[in-house]
């Protein structure tokens, strides 16, 4: 029922930039696979190549054994694609949008209602409303319904949660998990690092390259070095002050309310006292230094530095 995806040494050059460099990857049938990376990492380009909207410069992609260049029509039949900008007709109502997308895939809303029931039920009260008047979260659900209406075996979602509030984001991921249970293979891209842990496996992308592919747990556990968390009354000066303490204090960056840094050579017991006393000399108060567990964002930034 579900399909597997294989990408081999994929390169994509545009006129001035190399959008993808030597990307190789395998996605197993029924997997919920995440592509994590900032804007410009090449996520959208990769998805457009998989959906056969773009042609690779070199390398190959196969979906369920079908080649994305020669068998592109068959691939288009079994993929559901939700582009980054939701691709809804804003002047059509919710119902009209769905009916239209159903009809171009030669099916109907009635016939496949059960497929999208869970999602569509939430927006059904607004079915007479124009898509342009929906909130971000509702637009996203409508776009997902449109992408699912023809019962695809591979679902590709390009930044589905960008521009959507936190509650809707959470709901959306729950929906994805539920859909995954029906056996569909799902590829999803996101710039939000915190969403990585919700995927079965993730690929961390940066400037057209894949830096790491694994389950979120393994990526996090394999974090090289010890990660620390600092908090003081003067967060503004903290970043530069930390930098001056010791050469082994690296990868200093803001992480929410705190600042993270990493050590490798320094003795574990000495770090917190060293940092606390040095910061005190520089006028910081209410200093808290403690060891912490790495998250995907830490791993991402560490990989970027390499």
């Amino acid at each position, binding site marked *: 029922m579900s399909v597997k995806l294989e990408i081999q040494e994929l390169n994509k050059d545009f006129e001035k930039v190399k959008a993808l460099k030597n990307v190789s990857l395998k996605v197993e049938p029924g997997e919920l696979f995440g592509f994590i990376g900032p804007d410009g990492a090449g996520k959208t380009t990769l998805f*457009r190549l998989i959906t056969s909207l*773009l042609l690779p410069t070199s390398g190959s992609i196969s979906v369920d054994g079908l080649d994305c260049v020669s068998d592109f029509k068959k691939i288009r039949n079994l993929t559901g694609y939700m*582009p980054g900008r939701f691709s809804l*007709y804003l*002047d059509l109502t919710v119902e009209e949008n769905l*009916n*239209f*997308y159903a009809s171009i895939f030669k099916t109907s809303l009635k016939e496949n209602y059960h497929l999208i029931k869970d999602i569509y039920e939430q927006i059904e009260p607004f079915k007479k409303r124009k898509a342009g008047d929906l909130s971000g979260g509702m637009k996203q659900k409508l776009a997902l319904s449109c992408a699912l209406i023809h019962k695809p075996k591979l679902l590709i979602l390009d930044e589905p949660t960008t521009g959507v509030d936190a509650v809707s984001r959470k709901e959306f991921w729950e929906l994805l998990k539920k859909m995954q249970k029906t056996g569909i293979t799902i590829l999803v891209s996101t710039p939000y690092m915190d969403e990585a842990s919700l995927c079965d496996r993730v690929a961390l992308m940066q400037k057209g390259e894949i830096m790491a592919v694994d389950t979120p747990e393994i990526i996090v556990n394999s974090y090289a070095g010890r990660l620390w968390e600092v908090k003081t009354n003067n967060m503004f000066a903290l970043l530069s002050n930390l930098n001056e303490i010791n050469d082994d204090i690296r990868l200093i960056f803001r992480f929410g309310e705190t600042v993270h840094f990493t050590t490798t050579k320094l003795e574990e017991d000495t770090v917190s006292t060293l940092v606390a006393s040095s910061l005190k000399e520089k006028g910081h108060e209410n200093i808290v230094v403690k060891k912490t567990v790495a998250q995907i964002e830490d791993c991402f930034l560490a990989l970027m530095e390499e």
Partner: protein
Amino acid sequence: MWPFIKKEFFHIFRDIRSMVILFGMPVAQVLLFGFAITTDIKDVPIAILDHSKDHVTREITSKLLSSGYFKLESNLKSNDGIGNSFKRGSVKEVIVFEDNFAKKLEKEGSANVQLILDASEPNTATMINAYTTGIINTHTMQMMKTAGKIPMSIITESKMLYNPELKSVYMFVPGVITIILMLVSTMMTSISITREKEMGTMEALLVSPLKPIQIILGKVIPYILLSFINLIVILLMARFVFGMPIQGNVVLLLLESIMFIVMALALGILISAVSKSQQQAMLLSMFGLLLPTIMLSGFIFPVENMPYILQLISHVMPSKWFIIIVKAIMLKGVGIAYFWKETLIIFGTTIFLIAMSVKKFKLRLE
């Protein structure tokens, strides 16, 4: 296919701008060209400076004024008034009869009348001049005839075929039809396709199993219908508002128009294939097509009087051939035997453009 067309109609009917362009514009254009932009001579204000004031000058004056072409603005007393009348712009022509006009005519056989014209609008001035001279000449001939003075004379009798009253509406309607069909078909389709590109919905359409020809037809059929309705509206207005007859076969006219519409639509698709945004598509169809259509198709300026280079360019404008066809059917009432060449040219262009646009229409994003 039907859902696609239905969707396209929703887009059109829900967008006020499209509706204005589709339905307001044709009506406005026809009215504008028909009523406002007219080159007909009617009630031209003139002044008369009659130094003689005898029976002959009075007769000529009343002939001029009763013709309907002229309206007496003022009777001038002296030469000084002439300059001022023109400067004020209150008259377009001043007619000056010399002293003892009738006496001179009787004794010497000739008398002078001077026509002074405002040539800041050269075309109008030429026409006023011709009309005035014509009326005066006719009158002189009649006088001579009654006096039995000329033994021999050649009388020219002109007959204006196809447009006996020389109404400018007859000339404008075919042009307006062409412009409207071009505008609605080419501009609207190219904009509506590029809009899908801009909104990202084109991505979703391309990923679907729809064939390019289905996407194109779905986009184009609504505009064929709307252009056709426009055509009917313009023809009805020409007939019932301006009294312009359709001498030839109406069915033939509609068939030729449908062919022209299809050509314009293919052009629109081609434009949308090469432009990335709605704005670019609009500029391309406006300046790349509409202006040349107006300037070079013979709609306003006769092609024969253009520099050779421009004449050559005008051959490439399908609108030029279409205007010839429309005029032939509407005014001359002739059949296809008289314009099969023009028809063939448009037909060839249509096939070429369709082939190009289907080929250029990309199944991918690049």
